């Protein structure tokens, strides 16, 4: 069974406005693919379509040979489609540890188990600690999320997505607000994820995009303008004009 994520003619309209229009996108297993494009191009909306936050007005989404198009968000998540949010969407009153434990317990299908204390399940906590350690959040494991600095919250976003042991990971500007050196580390951590996980990430930081992606899709005004390797995209004059400005050249 392959885990290729494929969309066909995918689109959504808000009123008369076509935020995403006729997108054919393929995400191969093990992909490290970047999705770039001007502000308001529809990148986040596309991820929302893929994860089931929005239902498309047109087109289809397949994962392997299963059609996801009208599946609800949590079912897609169960199938291994995890994401982070561009604007932090965390559990402010929980601690990072409990947040991750929660994500793991839902992954394990324990969410409806009400007759057994949580603490009885040591494995959950061990796994959570390991994961937090990997993202250098272990020191903050018991601080309420609401009190974490923004950058740490960004990391927790990723931790929550990873806790789901995803097969496909969709990252919406994971490094925004994270200092440069750490964002590099962060991306390295992501790149080191098992090769069978496919990753699609949105990022406006071209250093990161060019360093970590193997393939780049460029979305403009809701449509895929072009796709290609970093080298190809970096020199594409159309991409430069609408998106990169002078930034592209310096990274190629």
């Amino acid at each position: 069974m392959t885990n290729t994520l494929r969309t066909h003619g995918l689109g959504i309209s808000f009123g008369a406005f076509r935020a995403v229009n006729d997108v054919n996108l393929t995400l191969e297993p093990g992909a490290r693919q970047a999705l770039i494009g001007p502000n308001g191009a529809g990148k986040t909306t596309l991820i929302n379509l893929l994860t089931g936050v929005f239902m498309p007005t047109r087109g289809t989404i397949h994962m392997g040979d299963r059609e996801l198009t009208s599946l609800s968000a949590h079912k897609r998540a169960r199938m291994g489609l995890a994401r982070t949010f561009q604007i932090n969407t965390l559990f402010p009153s929980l601690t990072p540890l409990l947040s991750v434990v929660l994500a793991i317990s839902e992954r394990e299908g324990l969410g409806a188990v009400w007759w057994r204390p949580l603490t009885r399940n040591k494995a959950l906590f061990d796994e959570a600690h390991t994961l937090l350690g990997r993202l250098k959040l272990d020191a903050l494991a018991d601080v309420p999320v609401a009190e974490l600095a923004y950058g740490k919250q960004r990391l927790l976003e990723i931790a929550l997505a990873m806790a789901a042991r995803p097969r496909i990971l969709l990252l919406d500007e994971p490094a925004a607000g994270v200092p440069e050196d750490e964002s590099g580390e962060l991306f390295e951590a992501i790149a080191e994820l098992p090769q069978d996980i496919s990753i699609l990430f949105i990022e406006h930081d071209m250093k990161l995009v060019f360093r970590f992606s193997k393939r780049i899709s460029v979305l403009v005004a809701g449509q895929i303008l072009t796709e290609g390797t970093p080298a190809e995209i970096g020199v594409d004059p159309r991409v430069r004009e609408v998106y990169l400005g002078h930034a592209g050249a310096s990274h190629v």
Partner: protein
Amino acid sequence: MSEMLVFDQVIAGYGNAVVLDRLGFSLKQGQSLAVLGRNGVGKTTLLETLMGNTRVMRGAIRWCGEDITRWPAHWRVRAGLGWVPQEREVFPSLTVAENLTVVARPGRWNLQRVYEFFPRLKERRGNFGNQLSGGEQQMLAIGRALMTNPKLLLLDEPMEGLAPIIVEELAVSIRRLCEREGLPSIVVEQHPVLALEMTHQAIVLERGTVVHAGSSHALANDAALLDKLLGVGIAVSA
């Protein structure tokens, strides 16, 4: 009287937690300032304190010679502080146009000029605040601050989430605002190179206090110092 803004040994935080610890610096009239530092050192808290959203336990903040430490936020805006919060925080139940007009104060900046500055906002003017893309929200937050016709812009990571081409343009524009229109800014940034390019002065924070203060130009050209303060060796080489 050439000091525009002075932080005098400010101790401030949230509830009982101290975040800014005897933080002090001053900024001259017409100069813009970069605030650098790693995650969680208190950059945002500095701006929040300037806007009166934290609890100041000791010290004073002087703006154009007046002690504004205890002023309510809306007085500070009237006195010329224009704030762009870190998480953008546009008003979700107002349209783009309303988000802008609702805070409007008389001056050079009006709806039309903001739309010229960010054409994208004009296209999306009927959308509600929560129906915007991340970058559009960022533009709106900046536009909203401009609409208050401030004397000093407070930008908390303004470039976050913006497309490279817009970042480039915005950096140029912010510098130009300072030079041509006399509207300086305090810029909090994760990308020191960018921030230092845009500003005259720079301070570096660590655990809520200033560990370095100097000219932006000097700091930008001192790779070793930057690396020591911020650990961004890779970035500087670019």
